[in-house]
């Protein structure tokens, strides 16, 4: 059976990028921008086409997946890499929601970006992002994944700094790129470690699997486990950068400087989950490395807890959602840390829906308030923007894990898997995870209450302008809200639906079987976890209701949405730590510039001065009388001749 060629999937957004980029560059000189209808159509058409291809392939795909090698990329001694694509259970799920949500958000952006001078440029970036993301997910080797990996980082940089007239946005963009770059270097070095262990073929995912099989076959596990652990740690550093985990998480809250659809697409639904995707993709390797897995679990746990607490202290609606994203990503990493890759990808999947819905809702709120992001100046919006409010409330119920909604199925699944994973660590992490779930419900409840309930706290004149978002924005939101409600039913363990797990079993199954074989897995009735999760969600919502519905929130005048006092130091803890590193580099640079460079210049000057002094000395002999010089030269010749004659010739 022949399938559609895989390269069709990234091809469409690439064409879109080129077309829209050309339009953007060509029209940039003109007074009026290009027609928004045309640009918008193109911008949605290409991701949608790509989604269609993915959907067709997803239905016709055989169990083992489709592999396709396009051409050779690098071929030098010691190293060889091909450009090839791999479409299997894992990349199918990822691609479906990447292209699907990507198309929806592109559509939403037509309304959101209406009237912006960089309309075409924005969609060119979005298409480029989708291209990179598709390459990241579809690649069959780590190197090609890395191409997408840096590509999405680049697009994230471009889109965060989209409104580049404001230098603050540019700084946030730079921060995102540089922090990501730190992670990327980890990824790069991790790949190099792998190449030293098993040659360049190991970078291919199939090659890696074959290599690990070979190790088990030859019984050499103990010999390679240390270098493999090094590689695992380095690649995990890459994942912490991209997925905003401790310690490289500071860029994500700042990344909210970009347009809101970007935050929804890149910084909530797709790009930031690529770290989780990579862990699942390399699951077989990670399942061998117990200590690395432990590190992943704990990093995920601390990130989830810390970001949830930081989320409590934010005033900016988008920053609350940013911290919430970090916290949810922490859950996914916790799951990956106990080798529950299917559960973690499931959470990626559901999270993409409800978090995108939340962000789009927040975007609609911001849009209707003409750019206001401070929750202290919102309130009572439920009367004015009912559809947005409904979408956000459904998504809220999904994220806190209210029974029946998407988050309920995925989050409880993760907690269950964590609990049963081991005797001591499992319950410990489980307790923290459950506590985090309570906090999640609290800060999300705070967001909903501050935004939609109570009285409007902004200025009177702005109140009159509040309006519901246009249909082009509402339709994607509603679709995503449906996703937030029902996507969880793809894998509802308690009621016996395991469709999602089965579809991924061929990819992550071996890894999880390997992990299960070395770690005793006890079995507990899933209903207990569901009940505990529900209690946590309800408790959190109750606390939020009690605390925030009555609390008088002071409407503030200042523009800053930054938390104050001790809240700020709690939120910016990791920023402070990064600042220490930056200060170190700056001091080093200062030392080079001011000390080393000056010393080198001094040495040069000294040498030059010595030469000059010698030259001055020699020039004394140059008498300023032509005749005398002539006499000197004749005398010199005579001297030479005499020397030659009396010494008996030259030779």
């Amino acid at each position, binding site marked *: 059976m022949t399938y559609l060629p895989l390269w069709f999937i990234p091809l469409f957004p690439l064409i879109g990028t080129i077309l829209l980029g050309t339009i953007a560059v060509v029209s940039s000189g003109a007074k009026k921008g290009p027609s928004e209808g045309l640009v918008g159509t193109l911008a949605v058409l290409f991701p949608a086409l790509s989604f269609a291809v993915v959907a067709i392939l997803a239905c016709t795909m055989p169990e083992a997946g489709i592999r396709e090698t396009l051409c050779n990329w690098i071929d030098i001694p010691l190293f060889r890499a091909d450009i090839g694509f791999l479409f299997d259970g894992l990349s199918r799920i990822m691609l479906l929601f990447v292209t699907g949500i990507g198309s929806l958000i592109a559509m939403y952006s037509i309304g959101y970006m209406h009237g912006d001078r960089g309309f075409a440029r924005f969609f060119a970036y979005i298409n480029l992002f989708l291209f990179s993301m598709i390459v990241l997910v579809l690649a069959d080797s780590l190197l090609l994944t890395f191409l997408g990996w840096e590509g999405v980082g680049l697009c994230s940089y471009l889109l965060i700094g989209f409104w580049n007239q404001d230098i603050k946005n540019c700084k946030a963009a730079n921060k995102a790129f540089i922090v990501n770059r730190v992670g990327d270097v980890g990824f790069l070095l991790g790949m190099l470690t792998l190449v030293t262990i098993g040659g360049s073929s190991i970078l291919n995912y199939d090659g890696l699997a074959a290599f690990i099989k070979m190790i088990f076959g030859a019984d050499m596990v103990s010999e390679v486990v240390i270098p493999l652990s090094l590689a695992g740690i380095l690649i995990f550093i890459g994942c912490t950068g991209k997925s905003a985990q401790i310690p490289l998480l500071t860029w994500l809250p700042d990344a909210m400087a970009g347009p809101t659809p970007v935050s929804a697409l890149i910084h909530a639904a797709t790009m930031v989950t690529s770290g989780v995707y990579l862990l699942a993709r390399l699951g077989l390797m990670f399942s061998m490395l117990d200590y690395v897995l432990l590190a992943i679990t704990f990093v995920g746990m601390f990130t989830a807890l810390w970001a949830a607490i930081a989320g409590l202290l934010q005033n900016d609606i988008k920053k609350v959602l940013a911290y919430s994203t970090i916290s949810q990503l922490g859950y996914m990493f916790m799951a990956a840390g106990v080798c529950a890759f299917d559960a973690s990808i499931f959470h990626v999947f559901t999270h993409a829906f409800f978090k995108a819905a939340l962000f789009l809702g927040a975007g609609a709120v911001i849009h209707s308030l003409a750019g206001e992001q401070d929750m202290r100046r919102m309130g009572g919006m439920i009367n004015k923007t009912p559809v947005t409010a409904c979408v956000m409330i459904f998504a809220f119920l999904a994220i806190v894990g209210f029974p029946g909604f998407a988050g309920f199925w995925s989050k409880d699944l993760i907690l269950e898997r964590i609990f049963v994973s081991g005797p001591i660590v499992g319950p410990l992490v489980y307790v923290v995870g459950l506590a985090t779930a309570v906090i999640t419900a609290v800060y999300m409840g705070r967001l909903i209450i501050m935004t939609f309930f109570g009285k409007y706290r902004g200025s009177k004149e702005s109140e009159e302008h509040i309006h519901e978002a246009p249909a082009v924005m509402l339709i994607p939101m509603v679709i995503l809200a449906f996703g937030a409600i029902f996507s969880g039913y793809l894998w509802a363990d308690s009621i016996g639906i395991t469709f999602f797990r089965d579809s991924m079993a061929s990819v992550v199954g071996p890894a999880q079987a390997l992990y299960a074989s070395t770690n005793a897995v006890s079995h507990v009735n899933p209903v207990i976890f569901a009940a505990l999760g529900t209690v946590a969600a309800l408790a959190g919502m109750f606390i939020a209701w009690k605390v925030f519905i009555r609390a008088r929130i002071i409407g503030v005048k200042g523009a800053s949405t930054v938390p104050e006092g001790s809240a700020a130091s709690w939120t910016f803890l990791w920023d402070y730590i990064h600042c220490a590193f930056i200060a170190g580099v700056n001091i080093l640079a200062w030392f080079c510039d001011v000390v080393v460079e000056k010393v080198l210049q001094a040495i040069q000057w000294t040498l030059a001065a010595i030469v000059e002094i010698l030259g001055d000395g020699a*020039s004394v002999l140059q008498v300023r009388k032509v005749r005398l010089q*002539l006499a000197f030269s004749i005398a010199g010749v005579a001297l030479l001749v005499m020397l030659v004659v009396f010494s008996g010739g030259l030779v």
Partner: protein
Amino acid sequence: MELQAMYIQILALVIFAIGIIVAISRRNLFFVLMGVELALNAVNLSFVGFAKTLPAEASVTGQIVPLFSIAVAAAEACVGFAMVIMIFRNKESVDADSYSDMKG
């Protein structure tokens, strides 16, 4: 009595020395040039004088070289005088010692 080659050389040496002394000691540029010419001619004389000591067929070489050097000297004199005149126009002086603008 035939002219001894030695005497020719002595004469050439004397003329050469006079030429050099004139070139060095006179301040007038024209005299300096004349001194140089004198020295050059002394060398020519020396050539011819030595050529005389050789057998006929070889001596031709020695007589041709002065012809060349006379031609070169003529050209050199032309250029030299032209330069002197140019300098004179700029400086209003033919004093060699006043030409010391080249700094070390």
